[in-house]
């Protein structure tokens, strides 16, 4: 394992510049993903995925692997819409005086992307990155009868491709939770309680690639996702 990009001496200046520019474009792309997700820009969220490259996949937690742009929408946007629907239903029932019109009233989903490790392929055509994500989540909890805040820390592993129109886009995205907890409970306490079912309205195309590895008092954390090493081309990448 190496820490460095160990820029191969065979690369030209233009190639090296392309690769280092790519790092910053990827930072921007991930930043946009986070803000699109928070603001509910669903079309822009999916618009950041590869359009000309086959093999788009999205996998969140143990919800399974969703394929293609339709799968990305089902995996990313579907749960957001379902969460909003449940939120709106609960808010209207609990607070009729607020005259809630938009389902997302009182929802807040903010994700702070930190701790990047990014490797751009030697051929400049793809990249892989991992991030630690701190999240603040807020939505109506029917068991509590009110909006409830919570914390979540997850890891993102993302493969990117440099497409023919010159843009970097997301090819594969995987989210691995570390913990999720309601604000009033520590993640230890939350782990000892039954979790609410996920806001899924669709079935995945493939089973999950790994078992759920949220915090548990009986588990040792795994090294997953594995930060990328330098690599030559997209086909050399191990599974996310």
């Amino acid at each position, binding site marked *: 394992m190496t*820490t460095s990009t160990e820029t191969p001496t065979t690369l030209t200046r233009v190639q090296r510049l392309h690769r280092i520019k790519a790092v910053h474009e990827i930072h921007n792309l991930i930043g946009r993903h986070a803000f699109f997700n928070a603001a509910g820009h669903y079309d822009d969220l999916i618009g950041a995925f590869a359009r000309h490259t086959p093999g788009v996949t999205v996998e969140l937690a143990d919800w399974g692997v969703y394929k293609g742009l339709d799968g990305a929408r089902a995996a990313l946007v579907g749960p957001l819409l379902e969460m909003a629907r449940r939120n709106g239903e609960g808010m209207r029932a609990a607070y009729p005086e607020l005259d809630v019109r938009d389902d997302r009233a009182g929802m807040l989903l903010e994700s702070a992307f930190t701790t990047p490790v990014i490797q751009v392929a030697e051929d400049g055509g793809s990249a892989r990155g991992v991030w*630690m994500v701190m999240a603040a989540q807020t939505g109506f909890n029917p068991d509590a009868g009110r909006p409830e805040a919570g914390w979540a820390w997850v890891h993102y592993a993302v493969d990117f491709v440099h497409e023919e129109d010159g843009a970097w886009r997301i090819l594969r995205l995987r989210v691995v939770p570390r913990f999720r907890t309601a604000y009033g409970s520590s993640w230890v306490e939350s782990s000892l309680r039954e979790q609410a079912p996920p806001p899924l309205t669709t079935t995945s195309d493939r089973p999950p690639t790994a078992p759920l590895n949220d915090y548990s008092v009986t588990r*040792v954390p795994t090294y997953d996702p594995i930060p990328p090493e330098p690599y030559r081309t997209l086909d050399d990448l191990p599974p996310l």
Partner: protein
Amino acid sequence: MAQDQDDFDRRLRRLEDIHEINNLMGMHEYLHAAGRNGEEFEKLFAKDAPGLTFEPEDWGVFEGAETVKGCYVDGAPPEVPGLMTEHAATTPVIEIAEDGLTAKGVWISPGHETFPMPDGPPIAHWSWGRYGIDFVKEGGAWKFWHFHIYTTFRTPYHQSWVESSIDRPPYFPEPGQLMEGMTPPSRPVTFNQPYHVDTAQQPAPAPPVPYRTFDETWSYTDQPT
């Protein structure tokens, strides 16, 4: 023309160095979170450059590869069910020396730690800190050289850091108390000041400023000036 190309190459190399430093910092966090301190030490810490030092919080300064390993690897908590630690790296200020041989960086680190307890379930904590780190290039790759972790606070989930600074949880080790298996430090703490109600924050670690060569700057494991 040749000089222009040299200048271009130098600036391009500087950008690549900054990226590698960011990656190195990220690798530290992921390996540490996975309990792979041994692997991390072997691959990411300097071995050839003299003066390897490691100063984690309130334990003191560990000098030289054997002693650093004796702290960071041998003194690491055992990977047991219920243990979880994560420290994020944010807010970087990174400077590469003009001579390209060393670098300096600081980060703010929000984090969390969960410790199994002998009686009862594990206890979750918020654990925030900062990093001040000097890097050195060895064999073409950047390595940790002087690595200093500064505590901001460590507090049980249900207690604010104000409260825990006044009522220190009884199960916290005493300041400076070595962990099982940990080699004693080589010299005392240079600086570590966790939050407390009667202290003011100090400018440590200081963000680096541009510099030409390492003998013109300070080490993050020396006494701050």
